[in-house]
């Protein structure tokens, strides 16, 4: 299994390398000299030259590229052009918040989506199936910021059940932290819930037609056990695949959730870096996002083995 995982990671190296190069190029094709952006239009030529030599921008492009790669290999993403803070520190500070939110979104999506899908498949054309259909249609139709604004309006502003500002709760206050995470996670997980319900329903419909389910029925296994143990286990592989694919979408959509609920995170960092034209921070964030997505994809592969033992032998 580990060898399989290792091989999988090795095949990702060329892609990752291309992404790093892209991050390097992107920041350099942006119109405008960073020195003018930071020092202002009135900067003297001497000041600009000093800035260039300090940041290494006066070196030939290939030297800059080699420097960028070698620093990266040592785990150094450089320092922010604006705040002079190490980029890695800024990213690591907010990464836990984005991961917490995204994982909570996945939890909402799966823990609501799977049962809904099973219920719909068992009802198959009945009222429960239709109810789930309408629910998933609604779920799919909410952009992350619309659901976030609506949830905030109804549950925080009008009903007052949840805090309006969802940050600042320390880990020592688990209830408060959970309460402040609930609305963002639900708003982020809503679309995923709809997709998971559909994937589960479709998978269940297929599995319930297969021979081993007929055999289980024939030997008198209770229906509840057939559905939740025998059938669902086979459907979960599809759900895991989907979750892995969708996780990167969730990380992307969390940008909007973070803005609406005013949470710290990678998304707010990206928007801030763009607004302030902090290109070194942006470069680091591009790298961070790509590594995150690549890692999630590799982890998804690892999960296959846990859900479906047949994968290991292949």
């Amino acid at each position, binding site marked *: 299994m580990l060898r399989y995982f290792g091989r999988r990671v090795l095949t990702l190296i*060329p*892609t*990752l390398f*291309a*992404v790093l190069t*892209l991050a390097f190029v*992107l920041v350099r*094709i*942006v119109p405008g000299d960073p020195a003018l952006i930071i020092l202002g239009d009135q900067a003297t030529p001497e000041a600009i030259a000093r800035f260039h030599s300090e940041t290494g921008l006066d070196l030939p492009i290939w030297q800059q590229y080699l420097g960028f790669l070698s620093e990266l290999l040592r785990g150094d993403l450089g320092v922010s052009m604006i705040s002079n803070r190490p980029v890695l520190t800024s990213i690591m500070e907010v990464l836990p918040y984005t991961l917490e939110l995204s994982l909570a979104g996945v939890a909402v999506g799966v823990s609501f989506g799977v049962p809904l899908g099973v219920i719909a498949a068992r009802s*198959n*054309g009945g009222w429960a*199936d239709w109810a789930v259909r309408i629910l998933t*249609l*609604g779920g*799919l*139709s*909410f*952009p*992350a*910021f*619309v659901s976030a*604004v*609506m949830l*905030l*309006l109804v549950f925080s*502003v009008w009903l007052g059940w949840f805090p309006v500002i969802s940050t600042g709760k320390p880990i020592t206050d688990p209830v408060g932290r959970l309460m402040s995470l609930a609305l963002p996670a639900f708003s982020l997980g809503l679309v995923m819930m709809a997709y998971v319900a559909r994937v589960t329903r*479709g998978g269940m*419909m297929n599995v319930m037609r297969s021979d081993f389910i007929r055999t289980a029925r024939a030997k008198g296994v209770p229906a509840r056990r057939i559905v939740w143990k025998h059938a669902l286990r086979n459907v979960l592989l599809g759900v895991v695949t989907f979750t892995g694919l969708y996780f*990167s*979408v*969730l*990380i*992307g*959509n969390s*940008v*909007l959730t973070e*803005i*609406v609920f005013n949470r710290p995170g990678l*998304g707010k960092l*990206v*928007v801030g870096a*763009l607004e302030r034209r902090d290109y070194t921070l*942006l470069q680091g964030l*591009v790298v961070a*996002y*790509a590594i995150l*997505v*690549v890692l999630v994809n590799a982890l998804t592969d690892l999960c296959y083995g846990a859900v479906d033992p047949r994968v290991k032998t292949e």
Partner: protein
Amino acid sequence: MNDAPETGPPPRKVRSPGWHAIVIGASIMVVVILAALFAPLIAPHDPYAQSMLARFRPPSAEYWLGSDRFGRDTFSRILYGLRITLWTALASTVMAMVTGTAAGILSGYHGGRVDRWISAANDVLMSFPQMVAGIIIVALLGPGVTNLIIAIAITTFPAFYRMARSAALALRERDYIDACRVLGYSDLRIVSRHILPETMDDMIVIATLWLATAVRTESSLAFIGLGAPPPAATLGGLVREGFDNLLDFPGLAIWPSLAILVVMIGLNLMGDGLRDANDPRTSA
């Protein structure tokens, strides 16, 4: 999946699955598109006309959905916002469909080095969450509707590319394509006359589903402040303006949100229906 008997009376004509969804979705979209097209005739006010005397008006006979902090009519702004949203979504999806299908068929049919390079580029594109890629591309290209369309098209490209590539890979091995080669048809003729038409059904279904995603991306970017530049009214931008006054005037956020929802529901219904009609196995 061969349930139909070989002989016997011809089966009764049944409506294809997804028929209801297509009709309802299409009806919604017809109304939305008409509203956007005839916005200048329907809108009771100039969407850009400011009036310091009419700030934050509640809904009334004059301002159907109220007015914003510059005294601009919310209903008129939503109508004009629909135009930008629909145009951006349509143009970017068509752009992604054309380029993605072309690249996918080239990749799948040609194979070899061409396939490896295009696939590698596609992998790089897919190493970023779609929303993040959209944000960064728009920011780098600069504001403007055309740049917005290009950015959304780039983020949607992989969906079409992968579908067209796998279709072309499968079709390439078919006997009738071999027959075409033996007959000495040029690659261009084989691709344009025999492979492209085979993939079009699937591509149009995906395009309908991705239209909804394009609307989602456009309105999200506008919400962040990366949409069509002001003073243009965009649905996402209207929600943002409303969000900034959420505690005092929640209606300003609610109405444009509902407009986005209606568009999304219409497109999703149409996409789902078309998919079910195209591939009956996915439905009940």
